[in-house]
């Protein structure tokens, strides 16, 4: 962890030296050329890697502290072990994140001096806050991790508070960094010449800032969950004992559960972000959704379809280790059909790739029937029904080994089914009605669809929790007996999500086109051209591979410290095989 300290010191030095750099930059060339691969690719790759690591180390502590609280309140040591295990992963990735952040800063200062000078002229006061927050975050996480045994027992509340505090610092860091990025997309608080008009707050609180804050916060939890689950899968596949398999099966399940819970609301946050970008500048909005980036959304739809089907598949495979789940197997085919049809609708392009003959037969590049599936009304309906189905999968998984003993169970279940059906009807109704109204009204319909789905989730859970309290068990969950192919699904989910994050990052950044700061500071370098989608996908694929290579190396390093220590460490894993009945 010395590395992180050194990087911090380096960043602090650099921050104090920035005004001098800024003066120097006035006499410098606007751009320098990074050897071999060019400056843009260097910045792109490092920024994406930094973001991946940062998303991981900010996302994991959010649910790690929640799991720690669960363990603390229920006095169940398994949760405490799991939380510690999650924080250990974060801790291992901490210095790499800082190193990549510093590297990114060096690249900006060295290769994009004009751009960096401009950003400094707007955001200089925030650099100090960032550095201070970074110090605070680092030391709180250090204390949280190293103080695990020291702050146990009656002092556990202090330890939990440290976890919460580190999350608050982490979120503040995320929000601050987001202000720089979103200012580049949707600048605010500056005059025609790009100079700051009033305080820096106006530049921070730009159009895309809050939507990105929300979107990234949720996405970080999903990302953290999937990476942690992939780590567990990796350990599961390499496990030598049943006990180890049970432990990592459980860890993978929790990681995926966390990811899935947050993933359900992620499309809504993304929609809000897209809507705000449209509201800021319609040219940018059209470039993103209807213009040259439109095919990115078809790729996105395919990847998200894989995420949905993959997550559900994992839950269905997981039901095999729960005695009593056989009752629910019959629901798998209909749920799969809904997911597959939703996937098809979502992936249907509005403007299709067609040969001349096909275009003639269709009467244009819009298919007269399938073309209806290419617009947002259809896509929103599809994704909302997919979310509802995924939720249903989870509900069935949750009750797989439980039989409610409440006298009102029949009524309760009937109400639950009615609520789910009603939500599906509302979603479908507004989806169809959306074709008959103008776009402004149609956009408003998406809110009704979202509210219907979220309300159904809340109502069904509000009935489910008391209904299955004190339920009769049909057997304990046999952790560790899940089919190994489920673990590959967890790894696929993590890779897909990482890839998706890179692609969407390209969309967010690429819509600026030939601007560093949209409409304010033009990119006059030789590489100002917006790369084609194929090129971008290749870059992101390579970055994703490098990310996973680094992650595996770091996790392997983390695993080294465990060897030969079993039993001696304060956090020796508690027995999990046989699991409890109530954490489905």
């Amino acid at each position: 962890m010395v590395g992180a300290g050194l990087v911090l010191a380096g960043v602090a030095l650099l921050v104090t030296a920035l005004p001098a750099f800024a003066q120097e930059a006035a006499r410098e060339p606007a751009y320098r050329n990074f050897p071999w691969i060019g400056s843009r690719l260097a910045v792109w790759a490092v920024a994406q890697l930094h973001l991946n690591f940062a998303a991981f180390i900010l996302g994991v502590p959010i649910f790690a502290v929640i799991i720690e609280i669960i363990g603390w309140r229920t006095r169940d040591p398994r949760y405490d072990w799991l939380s510690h295990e999650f924080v250990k992963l974060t801790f291992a990735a901490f210095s790499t994140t800082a190193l990549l952040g510093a590297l990114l800063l060096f690249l900006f200062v060295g290769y994009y001096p004009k751009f960096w000078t401009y950003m400094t002229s707007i955001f200089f006061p925030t650099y100090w806050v960032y550095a201070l927050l970074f110090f605070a975050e680092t030391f709180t996480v250090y204390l949280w991790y190293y103080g695990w045994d020291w702050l146990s027992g009656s002092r556990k509340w202090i330890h939990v508070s440290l976890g919460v505090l580190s999350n608050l610092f982490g979120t503040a860091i995320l929000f601050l960094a987001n202000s720089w990025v979103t200012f580049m997309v949707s600048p605010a608080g500056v005059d025609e010449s790009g100079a700051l008009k009033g305080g820096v707050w106006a530049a921070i609180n730009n159009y895309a800032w809050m939507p990105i804050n929300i979107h990234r916060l949720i996405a970080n939890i999903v990302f953290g969950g999937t990476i942690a689950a992939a780590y567990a899968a990796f350990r599961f596949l390499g496990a030598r004992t049943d006990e180890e398999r049970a432990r990592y099966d459980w860890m993978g399940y929790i990681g995926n559960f966390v990811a899935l819970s947050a993933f359900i609301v992620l499309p809504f946050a993304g929609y809000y972000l897209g809507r705000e970008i449209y509201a800021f500048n319609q040219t940018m909005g059209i470039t993103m959704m209807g213009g040259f980036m439109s095919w990115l959304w078809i790729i996105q739809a395919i990847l998200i379809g894989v995420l949905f089907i993959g997550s559900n598949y994992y839950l269905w495979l997981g039901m095999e280790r729960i005695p009593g789940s056989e009752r629910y197997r019959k629901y798998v085919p209909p749920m799969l059909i809904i997911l597959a049809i939703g996937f098809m609708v979502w992936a249907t392009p509005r403007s299709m790739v067609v040969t001349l003959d096909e275009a003639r037969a269709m009467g244009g590049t819009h298919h007269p029937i399938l073309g209806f599936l290419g617009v947002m009304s259809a896509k929103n309906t599809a994704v909302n029904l997919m979310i509802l189905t995924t939720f249903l999968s989870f509900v069935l998984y949750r009750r797989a080994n439980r039989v409610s003993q409440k006298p009102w169970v029949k009524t309760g279940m009937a109400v639950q089914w009615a609520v789910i059906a009603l939500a599906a009807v509302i979603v479908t109704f507004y989806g169809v009605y959306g074709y008959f109204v103008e776009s402004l009204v149609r956009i408003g319909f998406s809110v009704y669809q979202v509210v219907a789905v979220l309300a159904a989730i809340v109502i069904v859970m509000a009935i489910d929790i008391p209904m299955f309290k004190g339920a009769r068990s049909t057997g304990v969950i046999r952790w560790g007996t899940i089919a190994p192919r489920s673990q590959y699904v967890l790894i696929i989910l993590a890779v897909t999500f990482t890839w998706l994050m890179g692609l969407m990052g390209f969309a967010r950044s690429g819509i600026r086109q030939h601007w560093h700061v949209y409409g304010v500071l033009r990119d006059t370098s030789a590489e100002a051209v917006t790369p084609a989608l194929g090129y971008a996908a290749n870059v992101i694929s390579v970055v994703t591979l490098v990310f996973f290579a680094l992650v595996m190396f770091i996790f392997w390093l983390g695993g080294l410290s465990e060897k030969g220590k079993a039993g001696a460490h304060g956090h020796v894993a508690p027995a999990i095989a046989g699991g409890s009945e109530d954490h489905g």
Partner: protein
Amino acid sequence: MNLLRSRLVQAALILIVSYLIFQFAIRPPAPFSVLSLYMGIVLLAVLVYVSSDSDSWRAFLRPMHATLVDPGKRALRLALMIVIPLLLGYYAYTQAAAKPQAPPELRAVHPAPPDTIQFRGKDFKIAGGDNPLRKDAAAIPKHVAAGGEIYVRNCMYCHGDNLDGKGHFAHGFNPPPANFQDPGTIAMLQEAFLFWRIAKGGPGLPKEATPWNSVMPAWEDRLTEEQIWQVIMYLYDATGQQPRRWETAHGAH
């Protein structure tokens, strides 16, 4: 009946039936690109279906395993060893062989408009621009009527008298003229976007809308600014569509 219980047969049947539906039930036929996408999704769903529990997965693999190792299935094994490479080879040939037809192409359907354009020598704001003729509500019917006349004189030959993109000349063009009745065209766009497309036509398409082969003329040389706004009003009026509007609440941000 026993055969239908086999997971492998079920999987094959789902794939075949899905293919037949996609190929023959969708009219006009879905393009190959979409058909392959749908079949890819069905294949994924089928694999998930057969492997979502271990008994089913074993049942699915059993006939394949038997074909590979069962001494009694030697003849079938040999036949598959010949047929499968031949099928793959045929597929590779169909993909690689030169065809007389132009390769499929992709166009950006709604290329992003520039912020401003030059219209007859003056700067004209497209981003956030409104139709000035809508300010006087009383005059709207007059403008719509004038727009109708302009449409019939200039646009109908390609875009059709039903505004459905099926005019007299439409069949000669690729890409075909826009179908204004389609809720995915003008209903998705602001009036200023239409102004830009009408004024600048095919030659004014941005780079992202390659291959620039739209034959739409640049009407700025033939129609006045008012006439263009009038014909736009007619398009919306005659199709019953509404131009896209933007929320005003954001203006105060």
